[in-house]
């Protein structure tokens, strides 16, 4: 790995197991956003190298990891901004029935169907980082049409603006709004069903 030589990283190098774990998370994140393995590898490598220069300033692995991921987010955002790849041809995209058919959660008048009306969630804050929750989230995310999941993560995790997402994927602003709406509706419904419902 490229960062092994630098002297500043004595702190982080103390725990290779930690670094290895962080690296796996980083790769998963970068692949999800960038699609290409090579680009993801590069982004992770650069982010790690950059982050570890300042590693000595961080007490504790959690803080260091947060820092590393923040750097990676910036890297990924840079790559996405720079990429002038001509986006998915419109023909390849799933058709967006903009105004036509309503998502099945709503009835013909556009009101919630009884079974699909959002219920209150009991306080879920504490649970977000549990492995069970993450497994459910993973399943729900993977159930979305790939483009929906990707746009949702670009927006909520990489925190790209609508314009940037449009430029990257060649979508119109209203497409992005529709995609995000669909993604949120579907994710929310899935999480409610599989996590927050509690069989009640």
């Amino acid at each position: 790995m490229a960062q092994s030589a630098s002297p500043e990283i004595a702190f982080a190098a103390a725990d290779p197991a930690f670094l290895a774990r962080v690296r796996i998370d980083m790769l998963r994140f970068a692949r999800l956003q960038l699609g290409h393995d090579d680009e993801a590898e590069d982004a992770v490598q650069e982010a790690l190298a950059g982050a570890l220069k300042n590693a000595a300033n961080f007490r504790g692995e959690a803080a260091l990891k947060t820092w590393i991921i923040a750097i990676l987010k910036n890297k990924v955002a840079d790559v996405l901004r720079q990429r002038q790849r001509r986006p998915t041809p419109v023909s390849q995209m799933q058709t967006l029935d903009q105004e036509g058919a309503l998502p099945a959660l709503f009835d013909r008048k556009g009101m919630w169907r009884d079974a699909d009306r959002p219920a209150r969630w009991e306080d879920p804050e504490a649970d977000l980082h549990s492995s069970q929750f993450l497994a459910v989230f993973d399943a729900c995310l993977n159930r979305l049409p790939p483009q929906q999941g990707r746009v949702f993560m670009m927006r909520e995790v990489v925190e790209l603006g609508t314009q940037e997402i449009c430029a990257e994927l060649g979508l119109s602003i209203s497409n992005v709004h529709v995609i995000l709406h669909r993604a949120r509706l579907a994710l929310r419904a899935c999480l409610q069903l599989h996590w927050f419902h509690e069989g009640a």
Partner: protein
Amino acid sequence: MMNCHDATFLLSQRRERTLTFSERMKLRLHVGMCRGCTNFERQLPRLGDAAKAYATNSEDKDV
């Protein structure tokens, strides 16, 4: 009167853009009377938090 589909669409867009005055008014009117959309509104930020937790958490699962 706005329906739940349109209300959730505006609530979703509010995370990306500033709504117009008239959109905000219509939305308030609807959400004030609709429990489902009230819950949806509360849960939207949590979806974002969950996505962040997912992207940064240690699960030794691969992609």
